[in-house]
């Protein structure tokens, strides 16, 4: 079952939780959601009215936490730690998992050195254990670890919540896909036509040769 199906029920659960709570009790909902081991999507929760109403209150910092988990990375958290509440270990782990997804958006081959910096990991064993246990085995990424080249090759990475302004580039990429696919189909059609034509010509040529052979045989007889 893919990650979106797995987390759909948790999204619904926390959206309902948020809809039924107000003020300070929303803080627990946010902390619980950003700690849940199977939840990697936060846009739906961010758009719940009662959450939005936290803006401007003493709890607005928890909207920043939700935004951080929706779009941010571990590095973002470290550079804003002063203005954000401390994270519990399960939140730290999740933010690092989400950071990997963001890194995988940029490139499919992630160097260990980059990962160790971005994920605050001190050695290869620890990095690989994190990638194996917390990322590959939790289903958010699939890929291969290459120790010789010291990199992680990503084959699949779950999608994160879209950052504002990302939609445009997605549409661009999709339309590029579309035209490439159309061109591909056209060129495949051309190749098929070319192959058919060639085989016709070869058959005709084959026939001519055979006829010539027959003639020569008759002449000899």
């Amino acid at each position: 079952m893919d990650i979106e199906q797995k987390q759909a029920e948790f999204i619904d659960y926390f959206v309902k939780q948020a809809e039924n709570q107000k003020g300070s009790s929303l803080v627990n909902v946010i902390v619980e959601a950003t700690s849940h081991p199977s939840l990697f999507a936060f846009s739906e929760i961010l758009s719940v009215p009662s959450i939005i109403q936290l803006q401007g209150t003493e709890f607005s910092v928890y909207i920043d936490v939700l935004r951080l988990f929706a779009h941010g990375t571990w590095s973002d958290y470290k550079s804003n730690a002063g203005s954000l509440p401390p994270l519990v270990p399960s939140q730290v782990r999740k933010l690092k998992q989400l950071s990997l997804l963001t890194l995988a958006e940029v490139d499919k081959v992630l160097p260990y050195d980059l990962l160790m910096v971005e994920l605050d990991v001190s050695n290869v064993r620890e990095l690989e254990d994190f990638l194996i246990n917390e990322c590959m085995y939790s289903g958010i990424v699939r890929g291969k670890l290459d120790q010789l080249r010291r990199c992680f090759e990503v084959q699949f990475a779950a999608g994160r919540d879209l950052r504002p302004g990302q939609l445009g580039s997605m549409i661009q990429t999709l339309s590029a896909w579309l035209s490439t696919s159309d061109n591909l189909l056209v060129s495949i059609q051309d190749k098929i036509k070319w192959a058919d034509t060639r085989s016709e010509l070869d058959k005709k040529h084959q026939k001519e040769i055979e006829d010539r052979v027959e003639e020569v045989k008759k002449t000899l007889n």
Partner: protein
Amino acid sequence: EEQVLIIREKLAELYEAEQEWSKAARMLSGIDLDSSIRLLDESYKLSKCVKIASLYLEDDDAVNAETFTNKASFLVNNSKQEVLVLQYKVCAARILDMKRKFLDAALKYYEISQIEKRQIGDEWIDEEALEQALTAAVTCTILAPAGPQRSRVLANFYKDERCSKLKIYPILEKVYLERILRKPEIDSFAEDLKEHQKALLPDNFTVLDRAMIEHNLLSASKLYTNISFEELGALLGIAPPKAEKIASKMIYEDRMKGSIDQVEAFIHFDDDKEELQQWDQHIVGLCQSLNDVLDTMSKKGL
């Protein structure tokens, strides 16, 4: 001979009551089942062979037990006594298990666990016994040498919904999904193993160690393109030379695809599938995901 037979059976009963299993077995095995003086009918012979084998197995004596299951194997096919046949099958499975022919044992346990009847003769077959047989089947498969054959048997068990109710299911799932097993999981699995399944092998590893190391090595081959022996040893919790030795054995026995670069002290894992096939597979996967998105969109009326 008649009197001797009766005395032997009586004495064997007494030894059995004292849980002196091997003495009871030896007492019964003194009965001359192939006597030319007095013909014994086949079902009597079969029942004695099975009884003696079961008694030896109570003392984990697979060698003597096998002697009598071999004798019984010539008699069992003509037997109409289902209870005896079942007991014979249990003995045969347990002997394979003790001889560490785990995959063969697993298949025999599995066959036993699939019995449909709940009453054979005047014997009742309770669910718990079948569950034990199923658990034994899964345990033996997990202990079997990691490789394609074991994966096929694991897949059968993983799809058998009876397994999902077993205590051993969580580890069956991880093994089936070819996940690396960590020490706490291995320790909890070890709790329910029999003595011979934790016995020490000549290379100073236990049967369980070997099974777990090979399993984790095969699981690592699905995650890594290549790995240094240093790191592989750290991952498996064993010395790097040992990791190299086990890896070379598995590659040699064609249970894992790869090659060893001793100069660099690296192992390079090969994929079962050719690159072109993988390419096809990735594109198929992509198209399926695209279809899933389109299906979701049409379901949502977008």
